[in-house]
């Protein structure tokens, strides 16, 4: 027995699963496609331009940031594409393109690469960019276009979103009157996405389909979306005095589904263990509900997720399991932390 070639000698294990980080990002991109198509249908071809700018700028920012820091290029992992698409989904369709570009640079350079790139940023890049844009350009970031306005030739208007309308009813203590109110979309319209809002958040059914795909593919666990949405539902049920229609508007309104399925589940900025995920999801849900009900802004998803992102290291410290066989409780033992 002679061998012509040299053998590879490497440490075990000698087989690897077929799951790759790039594949995971590709799955997320696939999961975003239904909501993307819905956005094009409701808000017209400008969706393509906004998304092209955010994705393009994210890729360029990632490329030059890595280059400037003399680190290996990471365009191939597709994470910059995911950030770009999710950022676009968080913008109103009428956003000036240069603002979308600035948001992308903030997301990739400031939030992601300044902290070490993929896996190291402590808050969600797309969400942080959305918040920076909202604070910097409040008017452009709250100009909501009605669905099909592009087809009907209607101008963008600074109109109240369904959530804002809902909140005014809640604030005036007359929530029983909100159903059928002037300009409020029906629940069916909410489900299919025929309402004003940011690009990717409007179509509930498309987001749910994407979420289902990610769960089936094993990319995300149900823990965060379930506890997040569930917590909002419970609090809204209490706030709405048992009115399920009120709850339904809250679940499908604003960016809750987009946030709970695609942003709160971001690996880098959410806990690793199931216990941690549950605490994280409940925290996001609680903050979202409180901001929506009592805050000065109609929407609270972005801030809730960002606040919980910051708490992740602490949640992790509390929920990291003890190594196998370690006695349940040992006095004075230090927790394993980061």
């Amino acid at each position, binding site marked *: *027995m002679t061998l012509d070639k040299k*053998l590879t*000698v490497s440490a*075990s294990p000698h*087989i690897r*699963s077929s799951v790759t980080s790039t594949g995971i990002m590709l799955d997320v991109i696939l999961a975003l496609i239904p909501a993307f198509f819905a956005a094009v249908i409701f808000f017209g071809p400008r969706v393509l331009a906004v998304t092209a700018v955010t994705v393009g700028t994210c890729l360029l920012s990632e490329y030059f940031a890595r280059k400037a820091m003399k680190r290996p290029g990471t365009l191939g992992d597709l994470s910059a594409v995911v950030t770009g698409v999710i950022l676009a989904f968080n913008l109103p369709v009428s956003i000036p393109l240069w603002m979308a570009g600035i948001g992308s640079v903030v997301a990739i350079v400031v939030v992601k690469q300044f902290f070490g790139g993929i896996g190291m940023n402590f808050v969600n890049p797309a969400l942080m960019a959305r918040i920076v844009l909202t604070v910097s350009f409040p008017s452009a970031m709250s100009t909501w276009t009605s669905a099909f306005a592009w087809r009907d030739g209607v101008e963008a208007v600074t109109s109240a979103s369904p959530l804002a309308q809902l909140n005014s009813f809640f604030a005036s203590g007359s929530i029983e009157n909100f159903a059928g109110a002037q300009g409020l979309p029906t629940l069916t319209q909410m489900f299919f996405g025929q309402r004003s809002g940011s690009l990717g958040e409007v179509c509930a059914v498309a987001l749910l389909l994407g979420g289902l795909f990610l769960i089936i593919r094993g990319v995300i666990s149900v823990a965060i979306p379930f506890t997040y949405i569930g917590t909002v539902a419970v609090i809204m049920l209490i706030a709405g005095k048992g009115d399920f229609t009120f709850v339904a508007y809250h679940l499908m309104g604003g960016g809750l589904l987009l946030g709970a399925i695609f942003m709160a589940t971001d690996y880098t900025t959410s806990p690793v263990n199931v216990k941690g995920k549950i605490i994280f999801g409940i925290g996001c849900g609680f903050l979202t509900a409180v901001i929506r009900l009592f805050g000065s802004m109609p929407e609270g998803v972005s801030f809730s997720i960002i606040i919980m992102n910051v708490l992740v290291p602490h949640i992790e410290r509390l929920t990291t*399991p003890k*190594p196998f066989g370690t006695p349940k409780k040992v006095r004075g033992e230090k927790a394993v932390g980061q």
Partner: protein
Amino acid sequence: MKAKKSGGVLKAVARTHGGVGVAHNKNTAEMEVERMPAPAQVILPMQQHIGVPCSPIVKVGDMVAVGQLIADSEKYVSAPIHASISGKITKIGETPLPNGVISQSITIESDGEMRPFEGITPPTVTNREELIKAVRASGLVGLGGAGFPTHVKLNFPPDKNVDTLIINVAECEPYITVDYRECIDNSWDILSGIFTLKELLGIKNVIIAVEDNKPAAIKELRKIADNSNDTDDTVKVMVLKSRYPQGAEKVLVQATTGRRVPPGKLPADIGCMVMNVASVAFIARYLKTGKPLVSRSLTVDGSAIANPKNVRVAIGTNVGDVIDFCGGFKEDPYKIITGGPMMGLAIIGTDLPVLKQNNAILALAEKTRRVKREMDCIRCGRCANVCPMDLMPTLIARFAKVKDAEKIKQTGVTVCMECGSCSYACPSGIPLVQYMRLAKTILAEEGGKK
């Protein structure tokens, strides 16, 4: 925890954490073990077990017969070595082992006769001490891959109160089917071994733990478990989910009894003893015939092997000769492994001897090579979710990179058994097992300083 019986077999009593669903590739399951003719030469290393290496008691030029003692150690944690073919000692030199260690070794040139040593007689075994002595004399080490001298395991202190003997038929590593074949072909040896151990060591209960991907083995094992000698029904078959690493000692103990081995302790400390099924069957045969451990069964498989087979080979046979017996390579291998693909060792060439604890030779073809370029951790948590020891591999890797011994200590990395699940699952291709080893080395060095 109490196990529920359904359809004549038990179900696992505890859910174990983590694990990965690897492709089983049990291609050789239905192939009976073929006996490979005696090779022209064997090389018998003095280190084929965990413990003290043996020293030769023969000289170059001596004629030896099959089963003749040729090397032993005065130390207790060691296992003697016997001639696996008959012939002439031609060399006492050095040979590399699969793990890269150079070991003293004895080379025997075959006389082609396979003449058995006339001194072989069945040992008289009527009590615990005689059993342990006999098992040591047989040269037996754990045949499942670890290579720990069996007599040391059997000699647990009586105050440990061991009440459960767990027979490991999980065989959770892909490809390997020799334990499965043992159940199909030698089930009565297994039964006889079980009763010997149970009676002489005074162990109350026996659980034969087998993964659910081996229905034929389960059927055979049920036959022996339900036999009429076992009037109190103390021998039971337990069917476990096929999930790697189900057969790892601590995982198996937890799944079968619900007990958890504390860090740094042994199964005996919580009243359990785990034995590989082939080792148990060997003990039965040894007590009957007195023939020591001179040959063993191997699965030879992998995408580069022409005719995958289960073969019985003389210990010390050249790996290349075994592969030739299986038709050689049908295409160029890029890697040859002794043992399974999850925990086995990649070897530098085929010019190495088969050791007592080797249970497989795998040759993987170039086209099946899956290269994952190492990328940054995306914190997906897969490594933590698959870790059977409840560790956070990515966190440990981070501390290992910066050599932070204090932080590493807090992670409890010492319980890591290097099963490879984390490296297997990592989508970023990070060699996490190597970082676990590095972390342990850093801890050991830190401990040495103090």
